[in-house]
């Protein structure tokens, strides 16, 4: 079905330099509405950089990125509008420590989406129920376990009703026993049809959820394909090597 749906994210010939070092080399890919794309690759291959370029947390030096019809690479485009539509979940959760869980969820709703407090809180509480931590609404993030924090962070993203969510290694900072609860939340999201771009080392998740896997190395997309194809018979040596190391 996704084959026919419209393009949500499209990156064309994207290059990015840190000084003389080229972190992204002519990267092109696209994500359709409702699609779940998993990006994998060795450390330093540019996974975070491409993800962060999508909502312009990093500016790109060449190429274009179109998100929901808006040109992110155009300085004249109001980037806040783009970011409202595209959620992001970080490896380090980045909850606001001076706000309660509930306030973490309502802040952007009231400030950005201009919802009134009642409405925002209602939405927030529903989402907290959905990610399974309604009882922690009044707690401060410091009192929560890593897994709980990351689930709050996902709920915080959802509260903005984004059209897509970017995940940058959402489970890498978690103790092993907490990885499952976060992946479950993400799987539910996927089932509900959320468009997702996920950088992760969780190959099980990639196999189960991804519509497409993108393999990056040295700032380039080396291989792209269905999880079945990628995990069973990758075309490139580098991908084979990577899989042999990680699996």
């Amino acid at each position, binding site marked *: 079905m996704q084959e026919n749906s419209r393009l949500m994210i499209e990156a064309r010939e994207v290059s990015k330099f840190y000084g003389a070092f080229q972190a992204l080399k002519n990267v092109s890919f696209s994500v359709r509405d409702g699609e779940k794309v998993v990006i994998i690759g060795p450390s330093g291959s540019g996974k975070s950089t491409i993800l962060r370029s999508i909502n312009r947390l990093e500016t790109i030096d060449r190429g274009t990125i179109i998100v929901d019809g808006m040109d992110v690479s155009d300085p004249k485009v109001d980037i806040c*509008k783009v970011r409202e539509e595209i959620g992001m979940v970080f490896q380090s959760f980045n909850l606001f420590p001076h706000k309660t869980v509930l306030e973490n969820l309502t802040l*952007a709703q009231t400030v950005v989406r201009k919802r009134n407090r009642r409405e925002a809180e209602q939405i927030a509480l529903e989402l907290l129920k959905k990610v399974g931590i309604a009882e922690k609404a009044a707690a401060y993030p410091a009192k929560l376990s890593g897994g709980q924090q990351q689930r709050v962070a996902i709920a915080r993203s959802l509260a903005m009703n984004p059209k897509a969510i970017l995940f940058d290694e959402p489970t890498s900072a978690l103790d092993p026993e907490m990885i499952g609860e976060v992946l479950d939340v993400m799987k539910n999201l996927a089932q509900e049809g959320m468009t997702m771009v996920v950088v992760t080392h969780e190959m099980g998740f990639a196999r189960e959820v991804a519509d497409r896997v993108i393999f990056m190395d040295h700032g380039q997309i080396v291989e792209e394909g269905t999880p079945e194809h990628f995990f069973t018979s990758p075309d490139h040596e580098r991908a084979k090597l990577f899989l042999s190391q990680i699996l």
Partner: protein
Amino acid sequence: MSKNPTSHTPIDVGDGAAIPNKNDAGLFTAWRIAFFGAIFVSLYLAFGKSDPYYEIFKFVPDGILVTFKVTFGAILLATCIGLITGLGRISDNRFINGAASLYVEVIRGIPLLVQIFYIYYALGRFVKIPDMLSAIIAMAVCYGAYMGEVFRAGIQSIPKGQMEAALSLGMSRGQAMRQVILPQAFKVVLPPIGNEFIALLKDSSLVSILAVSDLLRRGREYASETFSYFETYTVIALIYLVMTLFFSKLIGIMEERLNAGK
């Protein structure tokens, strides 16, 4: 007296906080001896030796009030200036950044005494404002530069991810600063602001050269008429000591509360 090297030394060694650390037993005991000792000596001088100490203690209290006014006024204004300067110092705008940096560098390069004098009289040339306010502005302009560095350091101590999380929720840079970064930074800068307050309380004695009748000025006036320099300066020193020790303790307690409340 000195700015602490915050980043260019491998080991951070400063000349210590004005606010004694609870864990520093030596200083803690010293605080107690100094504070209660100063109060005891004051009382003894005022009531035991009466002349001229009693007279001096009667003469200077309105000076204490002026010292407070100048200190509180200046710290408030300096905090505002410091916030703006701190934001300027981390701004991406080259002009704003340059202006803020230049302000910091120039102010920190000139003795407070010279600056206070200069700002006070220069101000008088252009606008008619009362002397107390001029003195407060002069102090605040000087301390604003130091406060600017406090705010800069405070803001930069907040993890980058906080700003990124706020931005990726669609907030503008300004919204993120106000809603997410500054509330956290304020907690971080509170102890150093407490330190600046103590330093300012002491440095406010410099406004006595501006003919503002602060504690020191009042003492000098008394001494210049009665010629009891030693007695007067002893009293002045005692009063300053009690004040700074009192406030440093108070700030220390407030900080603890704040940390406990977290």
